[in-house]
């Protein structure tokens, strides 16, 4: 029962506070009156009676306050008072409040956004049942790819996985309702949907039987979003006949909503059995151990530990390597988290995000330091108020609580603004379509409600951090002293105070972000102007895969030659040529090269690995790849003539230690001797940040390929030319699904995408860091000046020179600025080493970067002290001394 009574009085105190107050007031007053009446009865004169009664009572207000303190929820009540007071304080100085909230909002937003992306990409698991059991297998070193026989062996020999599957990304020509469109999808092995463990939304998913042998099934499964967009959400879609790369398929099911494959950033819309790949791809790789083109995904059995899995993998791979020494020598698999192509993209992405998270943390710390010094200065200004409150009996704890509540209010407001900012940024990111032909899906970045909690936690933490900075000041306050000196501590700006240290620390932190920004900006500049080894300007790229229109070998070769011939005749075309794929397009073929003397073709005996391209005559000219020596490939190089290749300078240097390689030989993995017919300039092949790699260009007429990338160098207007090329292709065969047709630069945008993202992210942090350091420096400089204006004007009146005045007023600021900047630049240089991983040629020792950072620091320092300096120099001693 007492609990109920207590709760009732608590609620009464909280909600009927006015009535409770009136009641109390009346009670105390009636008590006083009764005391007076008693005294009068005892024979005192009325005046004396009143005085005695008041003395006995001890003050109406004091009694009331004592009663209030004893009430249930008294703490909450006074806290509420603190909040009201804090809001009043902030309303009274809106400039301060706005600055503080804004600084904090930006600092917290940066953290929440980065955390949001980090959470989506790294921390959150795939959206499938029991996602913690789903893993991916990949070679211990090298790319993320495995071959089909390898996965088949793991599937059949292991005891730790309940299902093992492999899959390949593919762009299909999907013909439905009479229209052929390119669609990204997956060829999946039989246990794929067992690993994934999702339920179909309609119909069924693919099973082991579908993948039993080539042609076992013509079943295809589409994603929920493809069902919505391509089939209009037709409830009778199951059973629909479609043609994929000209082969008839039946749609047997639709996946549940939200499932789009097992890579977080890819949107895959159609799933077909991998057993059928020969008919879809135009050639068979299912039985090849050395053709590694598959990603894998496995589901671990219940209760199996990672060391068990790794031990079993080691046993299996060791056996495979013994059994097939030629192809599988040194095979070693490891387990990685799925969703980001294992550690391949996941590793660098995690590293980059961790780095950015660190920068975001630095920015928040700088913001806290900034707010901390603002608060410290404010507390110093309020020394008199605080002293009075202490003098009339307020405890130090109560004063501190008041200041903390103020900090808390600011940080919560800042956190709320940050939440809004982060929400907008992440929603924008999720809805953004990067310029690429790949099915990139950024929906993963959609903000989650858990981010609100994160923002709240960060705000509270930040509030406590900067709210506690004036702690020492409060505990040092001697009410006597503070009131005597009239609140203006003459010592201000003389001793080294906490806020000075904070300012230096903040400048150092901001310098780190500025250095990082300049390093990445410089890197981007270099990347954009660097020599790619080809010239994408004024060139159009057309991409399609003839296997999607059921072409193979000779037919494809015939089609491509016709295409080349007719494109070359289009007026305005300077040069044209085609290849299986182009450099920096995202897909690259890699092969081992052996020296001419080799007789042992095991992988460990290779000279090196190369990127290679199958090209037509004219490709080098069309792509702007400089031919330095020898000849271009020719259609007279056929399967019947000796194999030839054109190699880049790096290739020649590595194999022959000389660039005079024309006419010399090397061997491929099959032991075939290939003669070098020409040398081309070095270039970039897989990423813009790679070290110089060797590369080779083979005549496509010696090795037909259905994958087609047509390059047309043109003088004419792009739009006209695009229409003309499209016309030629459709005229040759209407069924060819064109994957991409447009300026080559558009496609290359993807290559510059990571570095652009990095630069934008780091640039924003840099700008924000600058803003913070300007705000901090300006704030402290004007505070110091205003505190000492009187003293300074006396000096002026006594005849001090401008130089002396300035060094007296702001000399220390300069020391702080300089030392903070130097420390910051050193820290920034240390941190920027990490950047070189993402940003091409990002060097910290770059004199340009150093000069730019130094210049920026000096400029911002000068900018932020300019105002206070003016104020000091224009101070009129006569007016000032009269006023004070």
């Amino acid at each position: 029962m007492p609990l109920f009574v207590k709760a009732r009085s608590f609620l009464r105190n909280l909600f009927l506070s006015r009535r409770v107050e009136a009641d109390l007031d009346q009670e105390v007053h009636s008590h006083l009156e009764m005391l007076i009446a008693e005294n009068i009865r005892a024979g005192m004169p009325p005046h004396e009676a009143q005085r005695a009664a008041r003395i006995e009572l001890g003050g109406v207000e004091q009694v009331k306050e004592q009663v209030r303190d004893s009430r249930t929820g008294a703490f909450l009540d006074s806290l509420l008072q603190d909040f009201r007071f804090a809001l009043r304080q902030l309303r009274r100085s809106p400039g301060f409040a706005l600055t503080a909230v804004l600084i904090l909002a930006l600092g917290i937003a940066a953290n929440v956004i980065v955390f949001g992306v980090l959470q989506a990409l790294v921390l959150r698991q795939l959206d499938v049942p029991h996602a913690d059991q789903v893993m991916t297998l990949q070679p211990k070193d090298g790319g993320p790819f495995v071959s089909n026989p390898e996965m088949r062996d793991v599937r059949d020999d292991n005891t730790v996985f309940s299902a093992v599957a492999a899959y390949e990304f593919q762009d299909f020509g999907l013909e439905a309702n009479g229209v052929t469109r390119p669609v990204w999808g997956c060829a999946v092995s039989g246990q794929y949907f067992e690993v994934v463990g999702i339920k179909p939304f309609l119909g069924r998913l693919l099973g082991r039987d579908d993948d039993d042998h080539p042609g076992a099934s013509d079943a295809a499964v589409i994603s929920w979003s493809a069902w919505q967009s391509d089939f209009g959400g037709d409830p009778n879609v199951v059973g629909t006949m479609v043609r994929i790369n000209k082969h008839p398929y039946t749609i047997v099911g639709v996946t549940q909503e939200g499932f789009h494959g097992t890579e977080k950033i890819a949107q895959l819309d159609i799933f077909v059995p991998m057993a059928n790949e020969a008919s879809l791809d135009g050639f068979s790789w299912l039985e090849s151990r050395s053709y590694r083109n598959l990603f894998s995904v496995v589901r671990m059995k219940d209760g199996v530990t990672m060391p068990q899995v790794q031990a079993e993998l080691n046993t299996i791979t060791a056996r495979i390597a013994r059994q097939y020494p030629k192809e599988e020598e040194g095979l070693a698999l490891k387990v990685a988290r799925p969703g980001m192509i294992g550690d391949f993209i996941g590793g660098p992405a995690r590293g980059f995000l961790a780095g950015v998270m660190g920068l975001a943390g630095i920015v928040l710390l700088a913001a806290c330091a900034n707010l901390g010094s603002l608060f410290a200065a404010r507390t110093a200004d309020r020394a008199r108020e605080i002293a009075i409150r202490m003098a009339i009996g307020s405890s130090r704890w109560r004063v501190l609580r008041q200041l903390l509540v103020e900090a808390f209010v600011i940080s919560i407001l800042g956190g709320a603004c940050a939440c809004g900012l982060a929400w907008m940024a992440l929603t924008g990111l999720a809805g953004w379509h990067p310029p690429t032909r790949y099915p990139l899906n950024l929906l993963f970045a959609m903000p989650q409600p858990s981010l609100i909690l994160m923002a709240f936690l960060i705000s509270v933490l930040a509030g406590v951090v900067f709210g506690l900075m004036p702690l020492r000041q409060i505990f040092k306050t001697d009410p006597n002293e503070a009131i005597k000196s009239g609140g203006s501590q003459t010592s201000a700006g003389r001793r080294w105070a906490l806020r000075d240290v904070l300012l230096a620390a903040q400048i150092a932190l901001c310098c780190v972000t500025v250095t990082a920004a300049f390093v990445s900006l410089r890197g981007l500049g270099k990347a954009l102007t660097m020599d790619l080894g080809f010239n994408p300007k004024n060139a159009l790229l057309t991409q399609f895969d003839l296997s999607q229109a059921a072409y193979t070998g000779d037919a494809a070769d015939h089609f491509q030659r016709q295409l080349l011939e007719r494109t070359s005749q289009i007026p305005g075309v300077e040069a044209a040529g085609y290849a299986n794929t182009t450099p920096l397009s995202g897909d690259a073929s890699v092969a081992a090269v052996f020296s001419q003397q080799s007789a042992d073709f095991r992988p460990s005996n290779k000279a090196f690995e190369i990127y290679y391209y199958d090209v037509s005559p004219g490709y080098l000219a069309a792509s702007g790849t400089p031919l330095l020596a020898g000849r271009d490939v020719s259609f007279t190089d056929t399967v019947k003539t000796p194999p030839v290749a054109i190699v880049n300078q790096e290739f020649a240097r590595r194999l022959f230690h000389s660039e005079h390689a024309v006419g010399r030989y090397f061997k491929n993995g099959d032991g075939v001797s290939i003669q070098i017919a020409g040398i081309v300039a070095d270039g970039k092949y897989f990423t813009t940040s790679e070290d110089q790699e060797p590369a080779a260009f083979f005549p496509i007429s010696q090795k037909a390929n259905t994958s087609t990338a047509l390059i047309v160098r043109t003088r004419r207007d792009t739009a006209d030319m695009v229409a003309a090329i499209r016309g030629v292709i459709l005229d040759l065969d209407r069924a060819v699904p064109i994957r991409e047709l447009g300026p080559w630069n558009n496609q290359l945008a993807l290559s510059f995408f990571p570095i652009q993202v990095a630069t934008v992210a780091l640039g924003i942090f840099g700008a924000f860091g600058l803003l913070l350091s300007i705000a901090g420096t300006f704030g402290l400089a004007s505070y110091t000046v205003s505190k000492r204006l009187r003293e300074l004007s006396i000096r002026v009146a006594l005849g001090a020179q401008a130089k002396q005045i300035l060094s007296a007023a702001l000399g220390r600021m300069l020391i702080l600025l300089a030392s903070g900047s130097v420390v910051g630049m050193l820290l920034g240089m240390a941190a920027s080493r990490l950047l070189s991983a993402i940003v091409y040629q990002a060097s910290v020792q770059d004199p340009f970067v150093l000069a730019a950072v130094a210049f920026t620091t000096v400029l911002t320092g000068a900018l932020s002290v300019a105002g206070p300096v003016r104020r000091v120099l224009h101070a009129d001693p006569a007016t000032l001394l009269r006023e004070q």
Partner: protein
Amino acid sequence: LSPEPTSLLQGTLDLLILKSLIAGEMHGLGISRRIQQITSGTFAVKPGSLFPALHRMEEEGWISSFWGDSENNRRAKYYRLTKPGLKQLQVETKRWGRISWAIAQALEAS
């Protein structure tokens, strides 16, 4: 005034208030005077201690209050003992008995 009223020991105030209310409902001043009377002037309760105690005890549910007219027709707030209050009085009385016995023992020991 009586010589130097002993300051109230912590916790005894509740006991004295409960005890004084046994006689019937009373307003604040009444309780104060009653305590003075039953302790022969040893204890003088100041309003600054009395009112917080009364409000706290009301929140605990030991006493309840109502507005009424005083002896000379002034409005005054009256307090009366509740059932839990009566029980609390017994508990407190027993506790105080133990304490005073223990203190007496301690003082008699040589």
